[in-house]
C-alpha cells in the first residue's frame, strides 16, 4: 500500500463525519468480547544517547477501552506513548526495537515499511500542556483535515462541529469559532486539542498526562470526556495521578525504570496488585 493509497483512503473515511451516535454500539464489557486494537511485542526503545528507556515490553491495547500507563517520573511511560505514533522520529538518533502491531491489519508500526507520517495520520495525540495552534478555534479543529487535503467546506464545517461536540467543548465555543484559540481557558484549550485529534477520526487516541496542567474542575471534565469517548475510540492515557487511572481506565500498566512491571484490569491492579513494586507504588511508598 503506498502513500497516496492510504491518504486517499483516509480522506474517503473522514469525508463522512462520524458522530458517537453513528458508531456501532460499544462492545459489551465481557472479557470474552474484548478485541485487540494493538499490541506491543518485545518492544525496546533507545534514546540517541544510548539510554534504554523501554525494556522488552509486551502489552495489549484493547479496542474501545481506556488503557492507563502509570509509574513514577522517568519510568518511560511517556516514551512508550510517544512511540505509538512515532513522535521519537522527529529527533535524530532514537531507535525502536521489537514490534508494535496495529490490529486488525497486523501492520507493524515500527517496521521498516512503516512511514511515521502515515502512522500519525492514524493515531492521534494530545499533549501534556494544551498546545492549540495560534489560529482560530475552527482552524485548530480543521487542521487535521487540511493536513489530509480535505477541501470541501461542508465536510469541514460538519466535522469541526461534531469533533467539538464529541470533545464536549461545543457549547463554549460555538459562538466564537473564528476567535483565537488562545482566548479559551486552559481546560477548554485541552478539550479543543482533543477535538482537534478527534476530527481526523484516529484509530487510537494517545493522551500524554492531559490533565497535569489543569485545575481540578477542568480535570474532572476531561475525565468524564475520556470515559464517554472510550465508547467509540481506543484510548491510551499516561497519567501521574493514580486516582485518575483508577477512575477512568479499564486496563492499567505499571511501569518502573523502563520495565513493564504489571499489566492487568484496573480493578485488579489497584485492589490486588500481584507485584510488590506495584503495591508499593499505589500505596504511595515511592513515586
Amino acid at each position, binding site marked *: 500500500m503506498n502513500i497516496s493509497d492510504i491518504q486517499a483512503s483516509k480522506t474517503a473515511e473522514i469525508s463522512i463525519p462520524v458522530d458517537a451516535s453513528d458508531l456501532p454500539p460499544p462492545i459489551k464489557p465481557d472479557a470474552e468480547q474484548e478485541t485487540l486494537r494493538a499490541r506491543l511485542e518485545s518492544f525496546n526503545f533507545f534514546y540517541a544517547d544510548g539510554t534504554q528507556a523501554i525494556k522488552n515490553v509486551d502489552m495489549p491495547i484493547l479496542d474501545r477501552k481506556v488503557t492507563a500507563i502509570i509509574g513514577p517520573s522517568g519510568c518511560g511511560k511517556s516514551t512508550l506513548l510517544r512511540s505509538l505514533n512515532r513522535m521519537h522520529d*522527529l529527533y535524530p538518533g532514537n531507535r525502536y526495537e521489537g514490534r508494535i502491531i496495529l490490529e486488525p491489519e497486523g501492520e507493524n508500526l515500527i517496521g521498516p515499511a512503516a512511514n511515521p507520517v502515515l502512522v500519525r495520520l492514524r493515531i492521534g495525540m494530545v499533549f501534556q500542556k494544551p498546545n492549540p495552534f495560534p489560529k482560530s478555534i475552527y482552524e485548530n479543529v480543521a487542521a487535521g483535515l487540511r*493536513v489530509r487535503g480535505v477541501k470541501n467546506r461542508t465536510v469541514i464545517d460538519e466535522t469541526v462541529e461534531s469533533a467539538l461536540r464529541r470533545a464536549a467543548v461545543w457549547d463554549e465555543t460555538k459562538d466564537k469559532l473564528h476567535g483565537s484559540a488562545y482566548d479559551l481557558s486552559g481546560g477548554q484549550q485541552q478539550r479543543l486539542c482533543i477535538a482537534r485529534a478527534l476530527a*481526523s477520526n484516529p484509530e487510537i487516541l494517545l493522551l500524554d498526562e492531559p490533565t497535569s496542567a489543569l485545575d481540578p474542575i477542568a480535570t474532572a471534565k476531561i475525565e468524564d470526556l475520556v470515559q464517554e469517548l472510550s465508547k467509540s475510540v481506543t484510548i491510551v492515557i499516561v497519567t501521574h495521578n493514580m486516582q485518575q487511572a483508577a477512575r477512568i481506565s479499564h486496563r492499567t500498566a505499571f511501569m518502573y525504570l523502563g520495565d513493564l512491571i504489571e499489566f492487568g484490569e484496573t480493578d485488579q491492579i489497584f485492589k490486588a496488585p500481584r507485584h510488590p513494586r506495584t503495591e508499593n507504588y499505589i500505596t504511595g511508598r515511592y513515586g
Partner: protein
Amino acid sequence: MTVTTEGNLGTPAKTGKTAFKAERAAKRKDLIFAVGGLVVMAIAMTLLLTLIGDLVIRGLARVDYDFLTNFPSRKAARAGILSAWVGSLLVMLVTAFLAIPVGVAAGLYLEEYAKKGKLANIIEINVANLAGVPSIIYGLLALGLFVYGMNLGKTVLVAGMTLALLILPIIIVSTREAVRSIPRIIKEGAYGLGADQWQVMWNYIIPAARPGILTGAIVGLSRAIGETAPIITIGALTFIAFLPPPPVTGEFPFISFEWLNAPFTVLPIQMFNWVSRPQADFHTNAAAAGVVLMMLTLSLNGIAIWIRFRLRKAHRN
C-alpha cells in the same frame, strides 16, 4: 552533609557580622555596576543625539519639495536628490526581491532540513562570519564577479545583487532565530496530526516565525539602504541628471525591466559627493540628504517594530 551548587544569584548566605558585611559588599558592587552602565549609556546616547541634532539643524531647512524633485546640479541652491532617492528605492527593491526569498529559504533549510553535523557546523560558522565581513569586500566581489565576470555593467541590478549578498547573512540568521523560538509543542502538535515536514513548515513554522523573519528582513534592508562603500566600488555614478526608464510603459506588454540595466546613484553616494565639494552650500545639501536618508532608515525600522508588534499580538502565546 555537604551541598555544592554552582552559581548563586543572591548574596552568599552567612550569619551575624559576616552576613552584614557580605550584603553591603554585594550592594556596593551592584551600585558600581549600575552607575558604570548608566555613564556608558549616557556617553553613547549623547554622541548619537549630537550627530543627529547637528545633521537636522544644518539640513532640515533645506529639505523641501524642490529638493526632492530636482536632479543634482552644479548650483547648490538648485541641486536636488531626485535621481538619488529613486535610485535608492529601485536598488532596495532589487535587494529585497533577491535577498528575502533566498535568505528565508536558506534559514529554513538550515534549521529544519539540514542534517546536523560537521557540514552544518561549517555552514553555520561561515554564515555568522559573513555577517561580519566589511562591506567593501562585498563591493570588490561584486566588481569582479558581476561587473566584469558576468559583464552586467554598473547597473541597478548589480547594485541590488551586491547589497542582497551583503544582507543575506542577516536575514538567514534572523530567520533561524525566529524558527528556533517556535515552541516545540506547537511543532509536535502539528506533526502529531500527521502533517509531513513540508506541511509543518508551510502551515505552522513560517506563519509563527513571520514576525522574526520580517524584522530581520527590514533590519537588513535598513542596513543596505545606508551602504556606500560597496556601491562606490562597483562604480555607481555620482552625477545623474535622468531617471531610469519607468517600469510601466504605454505599449504592450506594459511592463519593462529596462530600469534594471540603467546606471544609477543612491542617497549615500549623493551625500558623499556633496560632502567632498569645497562649497559650504553643498555641505548643507549633504546634511539635508542625510536627513532624508535617516528618515527613510527610521521609518523602515518603525515599520519593522510595528509589524512585530502586530503579528506578536495576533500570535500571542
